[in-house]
């Protein structure tokens, strides 16, 4: 019910747009600065007064990153670990979610509470016993160590997310399979999985992001340069060449690409996953 366009009304609209511009600067400037710095030379990054657009546009920082097999290995490790964990998590969570969504059984309520509460267990608390376990089983500095530990953190979210999705699907679908004499296992693969793709995509996206971003366990449970993931790689870069800011920014841009791409292509699933823990 917008009333007449009084001067006061117009003033409010102008003020709102000014506030939106300030908000935009706050939200986006740091990211713009990362992007533009990645196309600058190191001397230009600290030029006075600062250059908003790169004056001498250069791809030298990207060439340095992409031409270095050590850094490419960081990317391979991140993609490999995050990809493997995503496949495993989605499979295991799908089974659990099916159990939660389609059956009534003793202990269901408490198991559900257990899974919700595991979401808030501090990673630092698990780090020390994991370190002890990983060392004593001789899997320190291996993919297995990272994959197993990531699985623990991704699983609770994935189960809650998938259960929420399966609960929205009508039960008559799988009951029809039961009437035909099929087992719940057949119903799961023949009926539920094919129509659960949106839920599976949202869960995969979220799981992948959690793994891609993980820092603490990658830092502690791996040691050799060839086992490091992208976040650790960025930190190493900072230690080795403290003043190669353009390379650090280029690496950060490359390290953010999967998230940005997923966000642009599958915004809906992305948001569904990111708010999964919080909005029930």
């Amino acid at each position: 019910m917008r009333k007449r366009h009084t001067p006061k009304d117009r003033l409010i609209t102008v003020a709102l747009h000014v506030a939106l511009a300030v908000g935009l600067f706050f939200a986006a400037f740091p990211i713009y600065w990362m992007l533009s710095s990645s196309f600058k030379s190191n001397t230009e990054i600290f030029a006075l007064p600062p250059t908003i657009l790169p004056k001498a546009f250069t791809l030298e920082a990207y060439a340095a990153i992409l031409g270095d097999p050590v850094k490419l290995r960081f990317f391979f490790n991140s993609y490999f670990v995050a990809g493997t964990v995503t496949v495993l998590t989605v499979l295991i969570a799908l089974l659990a979610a099916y159990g939660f969504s389609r059956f009534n059984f003793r202990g269901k309520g408490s198991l559900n509470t257990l899974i919700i509460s595991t979401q808030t267990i501090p990673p630092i608390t698990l780090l020390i016993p994991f370190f002890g376990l990983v060392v004593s089983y001789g899997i320190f500095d291996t993919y297995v160590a990272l994959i197993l530990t990531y699985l623990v953190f991704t699983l609770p979210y994935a189960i809650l997310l998938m259960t929420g999705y399966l609960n929205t699907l009508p039960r008559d679908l799988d009951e029809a399979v039961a009437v035909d004499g099929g087992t719940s296992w057949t119903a799961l693969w023949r009926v539920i999985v094919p129509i659960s793709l949106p839920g599976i995509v949202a869960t995969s996206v979220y799981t992948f992001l959690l793994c891609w971003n993980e820092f603490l366990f990658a830092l502690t449970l791996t040691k050799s340069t060839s086992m490091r993931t992208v976040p650790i790689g960025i930190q190493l870069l900072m230690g080795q060449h403290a003043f190669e800011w353009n390379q650090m920014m280029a690496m950060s841009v490359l390290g953010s690409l999967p998230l940005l791409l997923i966000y642009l292509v599958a915004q809906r699933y992305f948001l569904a996953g990111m708010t999964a823990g919080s909005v029930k």
Partner: protein
Amino acid sequence: MTRQKRSHHKLKRAVAPYLYLSPSLLIIGLLMLLPMVTVIAYSFQNSAVLRRDPTFAGLKHYQAIFDDPVFWASLWHTLYFTCMSVIFHMTIGMVFALMLNSDRINPTLRNILRVLYILPWLFTAVIIAVIWRLLLEPNGVVNSILMQIGIIGSKVEWFSSPETALHAVTFANIWAGYPLFMVSLLAGLQGIPKDFYEAADIDGAKAYQKLIFITIPQLMPIIISISLLDFIWTMQVFPLIWITTGGGPIYSTEVLSTYTYKLAFSSYNLSQASASAVVILLISLGLTLFYIRYQKAR
């Protein structure tokens, strides 16, 4: 179906959910619950992890932690960092959500801005830390802009002076975390029935009255549950602080997670680190119980 067949079928139905859940429960049990018991055990041992036959230490390691002024400083920094972060995440998230939800802006602009305002969320903590280190470098762009406007007279070493470091990391974290609130509140705003506002218009309510008496009460459940989760998660922040300041200078940004990490992996005092980790766990558990009770009451 014969009776025998039917009872067989029933049994299958009864066992099935446990079978479906077993891989998850196995992983959560072995890799989450068991380690939690282990870390508690470590905290009562001498030279945990490092020796094969550790001796019983009693409450010695807890005593050592509670006698350590750095622990108390870390606890205080964690509280400051977390409270400020949650308050500003909520405020900024709310303001942005209300602005984006206003019918005074055109829908295309709204959609573009919504995508751009979410941006900080898409970056991982390590990258956020690196970006803010570049921005807040003594010779960096923030100092140069602030000096040009005349807000500061000389270059400020944001991350390396004890007076500003804690504020600087808190600011970076505020920037990084508000989109969760914004997205959730925006979804909440769209769920408030339009007739509430129409009824208020008929009564001649002013904009701020509608905000206080309709919008905020309607959003309260979201505000409370996200604040609690944000509080629990922010308390556990590690990479942002580790990469920007590493807890320094002179412990001025030491938080519980960096304190514990250093005990474990710089001093290799894994027993004392376990005691500290258990303290963090207890604080988190307390808050989690509160959160779950709130969710159930809804």
